[in-house]
């Protein structure tokens, strides 16, 4: 006491002695939330994560992140119906991030650069996959990466399934399919073409396979008869589109009627348009109720495809069709009106959906088939027959390339677990990163980049790819439009806005931590976090 000046009783001290953290009733906690794009992706991609890497111009790392979930980014970057973009939070701000265009950029770059994916050491286990479509190829890739020996039996003379025989080449050039499948073969996937599996047991016995994944797809067309119309000029969409891949495409005359309102009907009509045929699409309901994607309809119309909405096929005669005018009831169901019209048509293509051809499973013990031909699987994607898994279009559910690819990945995980005598349990996911959690103030306005389209004149008479690629700068810009919903992107806002210096910056790549000795729990960090990666949780004493 005596050594201090007059009226001074305490030593000088830093405010650090004052632990203001004990004022706190709410505690900020860093979280990772599930971005809506990831949530919506049928292939289960971690889109936010690979965009994050692409934003840093680290394209190879971005591609490798993508490849952990989807072995065919160049294909999906062209044909996926991008549910991710529909779900994208940025869509509520200006326009969604053009995720598919960036995926295509990465996929094409990987093909150009010849990037390869390494495999785990061999497990000595052998897996048979039936069908080289998207789900079979996806499962083959993932299983090979896990170190299993995979053989695919494919009935056709080329790989790709619906990616080759269902999707027209102006949407998906075949060299892209060949490149991405070729990469899998280089990894060690064996593909036996022209090998239709008739006797499954024999095929398994012969190859000594420890597990089997069925992915035969849905190639059997649903058909109707048109009374009075020549059955030889009545085709189905699958047959028509498939014939385009052969050396002798089916001749369809000058006027083509396509019956159906889905995307396949559009594909058929636009293919016909490119052959110089005049296609008309006939559908029982109106445009608003058609299951096809709106942009597909618009593009088809631009190319000259005619539409006859609210018409059903009543009967036919030589080169003419009689259509009945329909009207919609209050539930959107079409009802006949008794009024008829006649149009001219040389050929009719039915685009009424497809079923799986699963007749070869009838004699397999334990496999249960539904009336529509799909095979039932349990939550492990296994049929009633042990070691026999199935996925893609041949199991009940939505049918698309991305869905099938997702099935393939999931099946690979289940099969891998099965081969190890374990059971794959899906990890518990994060809660969704919803738009209301974002602080959009911090995002710069930036419009979506548009991919170039082939001019109309060049589309006619040619199967040249219709949608062009983004160049590197534009792809980078598009990647950087990502809001990084629910995942810290190290913008330093929390570190800057804390009035108490209670946010510790851990350095590039390591994010941040809270110093709870001083954090008063004001909640500013959580409020000002652009991407909603901080939760305020009740303090428990």
């Amino acid at each position, binding site marked *: 006491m005596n050594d201090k000046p007059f009226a001074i009783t305490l030593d000088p001290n830093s405010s650090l002695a004052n632990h*203001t953290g004990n004022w706190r009733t709410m505690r900020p906690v860093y979280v990772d939330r599930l971005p809506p794009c990831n949530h919506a992706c049928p292939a289960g991609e971690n889109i936010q994560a690979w965009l994050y890497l692409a934003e840093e111009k680290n394209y190879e790392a971005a591609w490798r992140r993508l490849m952990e979930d989807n072995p065919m980014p160049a294909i999906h970057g062209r044909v996926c119906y991008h549910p991710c973009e529909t779900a994208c939070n940025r869509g509520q701000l200006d326009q969604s991030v053009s995720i598919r265009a960036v995926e295509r950029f990465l996929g094409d770059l990987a093909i150009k650069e010849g990037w390869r994916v390494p495999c785990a050491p061999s497990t000595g286990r052998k897996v048979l996959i039936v069908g080289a479509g998207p789900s079979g190829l996806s499962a083959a890739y993932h299983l090979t990466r896990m170190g299993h020996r995979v053989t695919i039996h494919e009935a056709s003379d080329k790989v790709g399934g619906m990616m080759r025989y269902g999707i027209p080449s102006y949407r998906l050039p075949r060299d892209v399919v060949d490149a991405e499948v070729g990469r899998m073969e280089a990894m060690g996937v064996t593909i036996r073409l022209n090998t239709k599996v008739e006797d499954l047991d024999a095929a398994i016995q012969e190859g000594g396979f420890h597990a089997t994944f069925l992915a035969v797809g849905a190639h059997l067309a649903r058909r109707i008869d048109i009374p009075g119309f020549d059955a030889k000029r009545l085709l189905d969409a699958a047959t028509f589109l498939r014939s385009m891949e052969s050396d002798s495409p089916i001749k369809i005359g000058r006027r083509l009627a396509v019956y159906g309102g889905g995307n396949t009907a559009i594909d058929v009509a636009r293919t016909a348009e490119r052959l110089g045929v005049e296609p008309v699409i006939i559908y029982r309901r109106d445009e608003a109720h058609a299951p096809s994607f709106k942009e597909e309809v618009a593009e088809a119309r631009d190319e000259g495809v005619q539409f006859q909405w609210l018409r059903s096929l009543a009967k036919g005669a030589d080169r003419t069709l009689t259509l009945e005018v329909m009207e919609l009831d209050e539930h959107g169901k079409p009802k006949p009106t008794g009024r008829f019209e006649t149009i001219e048509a040389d050929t009719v293509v039915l685009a009424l959906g497809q079923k799986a051809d699963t007749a070869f499973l009838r004699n397999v013990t334990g496999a249960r088939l539904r009336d529509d031909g799909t095979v039932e699987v349990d939550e492990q994607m296994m049929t009633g027959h042990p070691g026999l898994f199935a996925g893609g279009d041949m199991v009940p559910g939505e049918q698309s390339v991305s869905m099938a690819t997702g099935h393939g990945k999931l099946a690979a995980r289940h099969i891998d677990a099965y081969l190890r005598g374990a059971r794959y349990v899906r990890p518990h996911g994060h809660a969704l990163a919803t738009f209301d959690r974002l602080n959009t103030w911090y995002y*710069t306005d930036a419009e979506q980049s548009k991919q170039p389209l082939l001019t109309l004149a060049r589309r006619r008479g040619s199967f040249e790819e219709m949608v062009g690629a983004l160049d590197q700068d534009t792809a980078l810009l598009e990647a950087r439009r990502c809001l990084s919903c629910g995942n810290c992107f*190290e*913008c330093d806002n929390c570190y800057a806005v804390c*009035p*108490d210096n209670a946010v510790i910056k851990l350095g590039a790549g390591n994010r941040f931590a809270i110093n709870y000795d001083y954090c008063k729990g004001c909640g500013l960090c959580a409020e000002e976090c652009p991407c909603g990666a901080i939760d305020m949780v009740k303090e428990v004493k």
Partner: protein
Amino acid sequence: MTTQRIKFYQTGTYTAGNRLLDDEARTVQSRPDRTNSLNSGHRACQGCGEALGARYAIDAAMRAAHKRLIAINATGCLEVFSSPYPESAWQIPWMHSLFGNAPAVASGVAAALRAKGHDDVKVVAQGGDGATVDIGFGCLSGMFERNDEVLYICYDNEAYMNTGIQRSGATPPFARTNTTQAVGEAPGNLLGTGKNVPRIAMAHGIPYVATASVADLHDLEAKVATAMGMKGARYIHIHVPCPLGWGSDPAHTMKVARMAVESGLFPLFEARAGRVVDRTKIRRKVSVERYLELQTRFKHLFEPCRNDEAIAAIQAIADEHVATYGLLESEGL
């Protein structure tokens, strides 16, 4: 082939930092080596705008002055919560004397430094709106007219908060304080009272006057850096919400400040030698209600019945600012 040149990063223009930005384009506050002039352990309320504004401004000044800086503090919240005996939260040379004399003390420190030949050491004086607008105003005006070598920073939270929320000359019309209760015929602070110190500072013709907001970190730091690079008397007036006195959620400190700027109620501008030379444009224009409704000091304008006349009067002030300073894209300066 459509190509779009990359002009900016989608995030980073408004956030404090961003991993994609060059170091120089990031704010001082995003740097791991920022001074943290006002350190942890200070006793400001949760979500204090003034504590934040002070660290933003002084850290930026420290960087501009290469850490050769002395700060003089007036009495007020900032002084009280940062230096309860015997603790100090300041990590810089810092000095406090009285409520009303901070500008004079700063002038003295500047004169002493000059006398001793320490030309490289800069002087910053800081205080709240009470010390600046009311109590220290005479000293401030003297510092301005002598054009002393001082940057004076006012943290404006629009009332005397530390002593229990009494009205100051910076309290806005209709705001409830403990000396302008929301009762009677004209509830809250009277319309037509108060003073605009940035304009008064401009009238002194000093080299630099600017307004800033804690809600716009890039803008604030740029203004401090500009001021630090100049000679003579300089003045920066920073809008800092007070959750306690304004009755706002501590988590909304930034949001409240942002709404003040975006509504036009708190215009951000720069003036040199008495003339406005630049302003920060409003990015997403909002009505003043978006600002008022976040604060219970304006609650009487909405409950029990809405006071349209008062809200219109406040909106008119905002509109006047928009027109005077050209705060919208279409408006000229």
